[in-house]
């Protein structure tokens, strides 16, 4: 019965382009995104990119109460901090998975920072970037690699 349920959920997950890890609790990893080892995701559309933090990150951070957004027009570099989220008494850097120029920030996060928790891949997106080096995306992880990365990280602790 359990194996049939797992099979069914895997089929649904495959249809929805979601990876479900085999751990006791699962964070969502979407198949059409790329991932940084600092737990940000990026969606590439031509020379534009949308960036946010992953479900794994928001789970571990706890309730997000504030998002520090960069100014539109600011340059970002792959691996460098561009903003921060505040949760559980901590500010945590958000690092850009790509290099380029910020052309849009998610202003909804000023009023509703919890969107990062409730909808990390959709309404909780943080910035949109015009890419300066599309080749950098090759350095990021795909969904399978990222899922494994998360499992290994959590297993160490």
């Amino acid at each position, binding site marked *: 019965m359990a194996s049939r349920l797992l099979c069914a959920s895997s089929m649904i997950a495959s249809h929805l382009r979601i990876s479900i890890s085999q751990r006791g609790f699962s964070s969502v990893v979407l198949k059409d995104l790329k991932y940084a080892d*600092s737990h940000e995701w990026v969606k590439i559309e031509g020379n534009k990119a949308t960036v946010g933090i992953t479900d794994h990150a928001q789970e*571990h*951070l*706890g309730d997000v*109460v*504030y998002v*520090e957004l960069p100014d539109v027009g600011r340059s970002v570099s792959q*691996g460098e*901090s561009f903003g*921060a989220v*505040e*949760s*559980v*008494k*901590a*500010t*945590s*850097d958000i*690092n850009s998975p790509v290099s380029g120029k910020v052309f849009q920030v998610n202003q909804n996060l000023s009023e509703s920072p919890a969107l990062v928790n409730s909808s990390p891949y959709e309404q909780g997106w943080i910035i949109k970037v015009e890419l300066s080096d599309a080749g950098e995306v090759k350095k990021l992880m795909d969904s399978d690699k990222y899922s494994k990365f998360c499992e290994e*990280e959590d297993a*160490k*602790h």
Partner: protein
Amino acid sequence: MIVNGFKDLGLPLMNIVKLRGTPILQQLVLEERLLRSSFENWCIINDGTNVPTIVMGMSGKPCELVELEPVVKDGIPVIKRFTGGGTVIVDESTVFVSLICNRDDVPNVQPYPRSVMAWSGSLYSHVFNGISGFQLRENDYVFGDRKFGGNAQSITRNRWIHHTSFLWDYNENNMAYLKLPSRVPQYRLERDHTDFVCRMKDYIERSVFIEKTINAVGTQFLLKELSLDEIDDSRREHLESTRLLTMDELKESLANTSRIKSIAQAV
């Protein structure tokens, strides 16, 4: 000068800086620089600060957290710090302990708030060993259900800071400068400030606390004592976010609050 006499057991190095009466703004600016620009581990202990000062977290808004009228009238400094968390009023009776660590030097700690807090809670359980009722409760250090230590953190890609303000003693009049925050821990249970906090001096000697904290850190790190003058904080490539709010900003916030109140009353 190496402080602890233990042999190097492959422990990572921690620089320890002991201050007394250093202005809290100077301490916080230094901490932000060390977090962002240093590659070393640091333990900073400031035994009291020089003047009563209000310190808000990164997202703090004065109109929501501070009684602006008396603060402006009495000229109380208000700082916005680079870490998260709530608002405190600190003075010569507050003891500060800050731990800045490389992620790789504390490998059993994930760079997330709860993991860092669990590690620090364990460290301080050694400091307060034998004192009944000490625990990390939600995000505070308490004796029983009374808070005596408030925590805050900032986490970067490869490093994190966990710093604590310990209420060695406090002036109840100073507490009146702070509003009741909208976000409070569940265990507070609608208690007002005087019923919610306690004084650390009722539980442990000040010098004993500092000595035991250094010893506890020394079980995980090889300690090296440095004076303030010996710290090289010349690398400042980062944007500094810790700052003192100007009196004009506070007055403007007060004026806006008064305006909103008047409109609300008129409606």
